[in-house]
């Protein structure tokens, strides 16, 4: 045990400028310690790579139950999901969620996702100038997830708003959260009433209902699973794909490396995820007094995991502020790690790899205008990214 005091910072984790560019704040917090107390948010933030990775693997000390979000309402709403539960309950819920989402279940989708991504990129390259977030970063995941779940018509149009709101409400009870709760509520209400017949025959979504009807998964869980596919799988993937385009626009020499050696595609996606984490902060609760990096996080404390801070920790990655596709940081923290590691990472990889392959094949260089960023509680993404000119490969 140790009697060293936990370092304190007056930073507000959800202040607009911090949300738009958290990296200077992450560096300052990392400098203070592996864990830092932020009275403004009543949280203990985890900032260094090893501390975060250990906490993600240690669900017995860092519980997810009622602790993922940063306001009581959202934690109440998430009760009973795999996201917000601990083993052993978590184990069954997770298996139900991932039965249709694991790489082995998704293998059949690879060709169609590759074709969708390539067609989108080809069309945009032919246009010569376009807005990359709507045109690509949103277009691909919305199409992929809609087809996966079997959405049709009007519901498809709501997916973007619903997905954004579902992440936004995980933040503290600020104006963004308050404005997003009614929209997140629409998603929840729709998922509570959707039936198998609403979803396209042969889709994964329809399959979840058929599994429920067969008794393979517990009664009344199909709607919850659809809810999690949408809540977790849309906004985050959109952020990643937007980041792919922006980072390759800013680093054409890195895109050239992938073009010369396409086996670098998975490494390039790992580096995009490491360099810009799609998620800013994610909650846990300390179940006991836990010693972390020489100080004690008190029992009951609210903990915030800063994935992006760990991903830039110079104690773990050499030259962490450089974007280098050959680095292949396969152990980056952006998908989390351990029992709660991103359940949809197989699908995210399929989509992102398809985009990187298509860009490397078709694009030599992108000339971009200024990117627009809007502060958002949890997902850090680019709102608009004008592509002014495309030099073909």
């Amino acid at each position, binding site marked *: 045990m140790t009697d060293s005091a936990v370092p304190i910072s007056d930073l507000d984790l959800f202040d607009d400028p911090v949300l738009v560019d958290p990296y200077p704040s992450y560096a300052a917090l990392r400098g203070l310690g592996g864990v830092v107390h932020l009275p403004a948010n009543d949280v203990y933030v985890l900032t260094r790579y090893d501390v975060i990775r250990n906490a993600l*693997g240690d669900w017995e000390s860092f519980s997810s139950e009622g602790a993922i979000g940063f306001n009581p309402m959202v934690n109440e709403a998430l009760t009973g999901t795999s996201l917000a539960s601990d083993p052993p309950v978590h*184990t069954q819920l997770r*298996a139900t969620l*991932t039965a249709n989402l*694991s*790489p*082995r*279940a998704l*293998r059949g989708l690879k060709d169609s996702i590759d074709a969708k991504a390539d067609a989108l990129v080809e069309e945009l390259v032919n246009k010569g100038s376009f807005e990359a977030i709507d045109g690509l970063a949103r277009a691909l995941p919305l199409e992929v997830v809609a087809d996966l779940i079997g959405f049709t018509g009007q519901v498809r149009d709501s997916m973007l708003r619903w997905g954004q709101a579902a992440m936004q409400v995980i933040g503290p009870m600020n104006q963004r959260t308050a404005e997003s709760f009614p929209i997140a509520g629409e998603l929840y209400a729709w998922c509570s009433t959707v039936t198998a017949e609403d979803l396209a025959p042969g889709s994964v979504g329809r399959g979840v209902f058929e599994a429920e009807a067969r008794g393979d998964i517990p009664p009344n869980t199909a709607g919850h699973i659809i809810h999690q596919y949408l809540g977790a799988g849309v906004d985050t993937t959109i952020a990643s794909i937007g980041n792919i385009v922006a980072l390759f626009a800013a680093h054409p020499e890195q895109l050239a490396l992938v073009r010369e050696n396409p086996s670098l595609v*998975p490494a390039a996606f790992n580096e995009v995820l490491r360099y810009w984490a799609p998620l800013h902060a994610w909650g846990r609760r300390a179940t006991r007094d836990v010693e972390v990096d020489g100080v004690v996080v008190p029992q009951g404390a609210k903990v915030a995991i800063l994935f992006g801070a760990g991903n830039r920790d110079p104690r773990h990655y050499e030259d962490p502020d450089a974007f280098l596709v050959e680095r292949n940081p*396969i*152990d980056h923290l952006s*998908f989390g*790690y*351990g*029992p709660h*590691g*991103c*359940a949809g*990472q*197989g699908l995210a990889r399929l989509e992102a790899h398809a985009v990187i392959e298509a860009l490397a094949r078709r694009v030599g260089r992108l000339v971009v205008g200024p990117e627009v960023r809007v502060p958002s509680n949890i997902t850090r993404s680019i709102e608009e990214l004008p592509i002014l000119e495309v030099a073909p490969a």
Partner: protein
Amino acid sequence: MRIVLDRPRCEGHGLCEEAAPDLMHLDDDGELVLDREEISDADSALANAAVRVCPVAALRLV
């Protein structure tokens, strides 16, 4: 040293196979097969890498 797989936890992400293709592979159904469970000193670095990259912590060395 032995490598141990927590089978229910494994989701078949396949990153371990990329790290240590001589020690394990995904079969045609996407299920992980450990080709060598007893790990020699010569293979311990590879085995460690495979354990480390598992995104859901389904592998460990004992």
